[in-house]
């Protein structure tokens, strides 16, 4: 940390500098955005904005200990540390005022730090940014040198291929994993500088959750200048990235790892109709036919014990059916699994530190798929947290310590009893590079007692999900949850789809001809418009 950083809360560091207050006075808005290191007097125009909108998280003293501290992960930033993640300044340096304004305006997706552009507008954001600066800068300190981010060239296939090589050469995979899912070998052993707590490398396949923005220029800034206070290093001294082109190659490769906008949330999961057998092989071409269905997950903050930051943030679900079977394919990102190096290294470290004894059981990951045992077509459903007495749900549960998915009846949220009869449920699990893919299938009709039935299309069976990442201490009621969705079986193509419209067209046409002929006949007889009683022909 550079030596000029001094914790300095505006409430006390300017006590008595009345002269200064007077001097700054009215022209402060301008001064604040133009110059560096403007101390923050009590009359600072950013102060009321901070009190109304930021204090509840960042605290009156700017130390991050606001009301929301306990319910938030990552923790609200301690501004007095002077450590800021997103900067166009060298590693270890303060951000520019512009950097602060940008992050305040756009927020940090995937955390509780909101975007303020709509609420505050540019002028008030400039004021509150200057006020935030007052928490860590003392008057007279030289401003940091701002580095320029040039405009991004368009991505090309070649650029992405070159970027991939750079990703390997620079060992980004050590933390972010080979496929970028945050499952690198040392991923689970990293610490941040504010509290010394654990910090996990970003999943680079979900660009909509990049905290510093998802534009190419944002990634360029992150890679080059690193994120202060975190293990994410700066790379501006890196020889391999000396050329402008190489930097953009790496950026374009990162952007090719996944979509940069969050997939749309829909309410109906359509099981496509196929002719062949439902494949358990997750890479089988038939699964390509089913559209991936995006299920965002929230932390379970409803019943005790609660969870505030879910490890798994979303599922992608595909569904297929044929005349006899129904199949699901569920994938989710979890950087740790029984036999991956990230988990092994984390456990080794925990044993060294005495937080774990050799031979302690391995953490268990879980996925539970939930269906109501009974439901009326339009009525209410069992409670979405695994039902309640009198309104039971059935579960299909996968656990990383069991060979097969089991059928179970839920007892309360996060607890269940296995049912003896598998009802023909079979499954297969593949884990690679931080991604779990579970495929499972079952006959649509089962004679197992109290089994879920999928007798006819469109079916409309309510479905929900919950997930636990054992390594992060999840399991039982501490799990990531989803709301109820509807699983709908697509109708097979039907002949009436073609015949009925033709029939309707023919009928309408015939009726028209009848009216036309009768009207014209009457007109010829010379009584326009007068309906006359006539026997129908």
């Amino acid at each position: 940390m550079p030596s000029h950083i001094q914790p300095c809360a505006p409430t006390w560091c300017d006590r008595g500098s009345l002269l200064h207050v007077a001097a700054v006075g009215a022209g402060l808005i301008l001064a604040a955005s133009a110059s560096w290191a403007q101390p923050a007097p009590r009359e600072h125009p950013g102060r009321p904005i901070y009190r109304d909108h930021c204090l509840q998280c960042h605290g009156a003293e700017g130390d991050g200990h606001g009301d929301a501290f306990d319910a938030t992960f990552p923790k609200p930033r301690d501004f007095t540390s002077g450590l800021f993640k997103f900067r166009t300044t060298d590693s270890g340096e303060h951000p520019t005022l512009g950097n602060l304004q940008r992050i305040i305006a756009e927020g940090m997706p995937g955390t509780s730090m909101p975007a303020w552009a709509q609420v505050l507008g540019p002028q008030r954001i400039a004021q509150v940014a200057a006020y935030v600066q007052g928490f860590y800068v003392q008057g007279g300190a030289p401003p940091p040198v701002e580095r320029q981010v040039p405009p991004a060239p368009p991505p090309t296939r070649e650029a992405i291929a070159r970027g991939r090589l750079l990703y390997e050469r620079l060992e980004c995979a050590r933390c972010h994993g080979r496929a970028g899912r945050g499952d690198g070998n040392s991923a689970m052993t990293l610490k941040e500088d504010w509290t010394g707590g654990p910090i996990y490398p970003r999943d680079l396949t979900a660009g909509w959750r990049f905290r510093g923005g998802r534009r190419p220029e944002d990634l360029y800034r992150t890679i080059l200048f690193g994120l202060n206070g975190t293990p994410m290093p700066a790379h501006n001294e890196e020889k391999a990235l000396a050329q402008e082109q190489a930097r953009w190659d790496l950026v374009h490769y990162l952007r090719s790892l996944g979509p940069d906008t969050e997939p749309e949330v829909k309410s109906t999961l359509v099981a496509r109709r196929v002719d062949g057998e439902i494949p358990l092989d997750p890479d089988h071409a038939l699964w390509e036919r089913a559209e991936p269905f995006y299920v965002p997950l929230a932390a379970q903050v409803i019943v005790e014990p609660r969870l505030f930051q879910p490890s798994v943030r979303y599922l992608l679900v595909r569904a297929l059916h044929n005349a006899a079977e129904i199949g699901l394919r569920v994938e989710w990102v979890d950087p740790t699994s029984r036999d991956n190096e990230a988990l092994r290294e984390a456990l080794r470290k925990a044993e060294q530190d005495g937080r774990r004894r050799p031979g302690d059981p391995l953490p268990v990951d879980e996925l539970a798929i939930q269906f109501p045992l009974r439901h009326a077509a339009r009525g209410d459903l069992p409670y979405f947290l695994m039902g309640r007495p009198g309104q039971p749900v059935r579960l299909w549960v996968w656990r990383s310590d069991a060979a097969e998915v089991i059928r179970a009846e839920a007892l309360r949220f996060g607890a269940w009893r296995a049912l003896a009869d598998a009802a023909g449920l079979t499954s297969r699990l593949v884990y690679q590079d931080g991604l779990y893919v579970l495929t499972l299938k079952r006959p649509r009709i089962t004679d197992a007692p109290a089994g879920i039935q999928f007798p006819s299309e469109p079916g409309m069976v309510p479905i929900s999900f919950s997930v636990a990442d054992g390594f992060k201490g999840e399991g039982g009621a501490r799990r990531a949850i989803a709301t109820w969705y509807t699983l709908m079986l697509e109708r097979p193509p039907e002949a009436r789809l073609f015949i009925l419209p033709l029939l309707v067209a023919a009928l309408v046409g015939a009726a028209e001809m009848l009216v036309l002929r009768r009207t014209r006949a009457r007109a010829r007889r010379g009584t326009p418009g007068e309906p006359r009683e006539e026997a129908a022909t």
Partner: protein
Amino acid sequence: MRLIRNALVQCLAVLLLALAVLLAVRPPIPASLLTFYLAVIGVGLGVYITATTERMESFWRPLHALLILDRLRPARWGVLLALPVLAAGQTAWSLLPTRQAPATLRVIHPAPPTQIRFEGRSINLREARNPLRAAKASEPRAFAAHVETGRRVYYQNCFQCHGDNLAGDGPFAHAFNPRPANFQDLGTIAQLQESYLFWRIAKGGPGLPPESAPGRSAMPRWEGRLSEEEIWAVILFLYEMTGHPPRTWD
């Protein structure tokens, strides 16, 4: 002018206008309801036309002309061809397999019970008033302290779903259906009494009647986790922050 006096033109104008208005309404009206509204308007127009013989005649005259006049031959065949095509299209459309389950109908603000039990004590929701509100006029300092308590409760428990700015858009909001309530919206707390909020906060989703789909609601039940005073304080905070006045009984 003559055109406007024609009953057919009038009917078409009314129908088009109604359709434009109904389609412009946000949030969009469901298709079934739209059909119903249009049917009602159609019946009304039918009554209007058949009320007098002149109107009947003025309604039929253009149609009649279309069918018999030779100079209208191209238009005639255009219309006669378009109608079966439209009908066939509509049939095919209605037969296409839907990819969307029918929306669940749900009463968002059901009638509250008159009486609830909170921590073993019974509270009459008709009579209950926010005991902390009285301080607003008499003791501004105490009132401000209550609002601060409410702020603390909100940011320790609620903002994850209802959003930092009370707009129902917290980090977890999009994982739930129904979505967490937006308190800034005029359709939520601005329409409700404080005792109603007390009931909804104390009893949560599980306390809703069946017509409000309690099984889907992610709203936790705060009885047992928040005290009575904390609940009244967070209610004060919601109204103070949004600037909405609570609805009163009189």
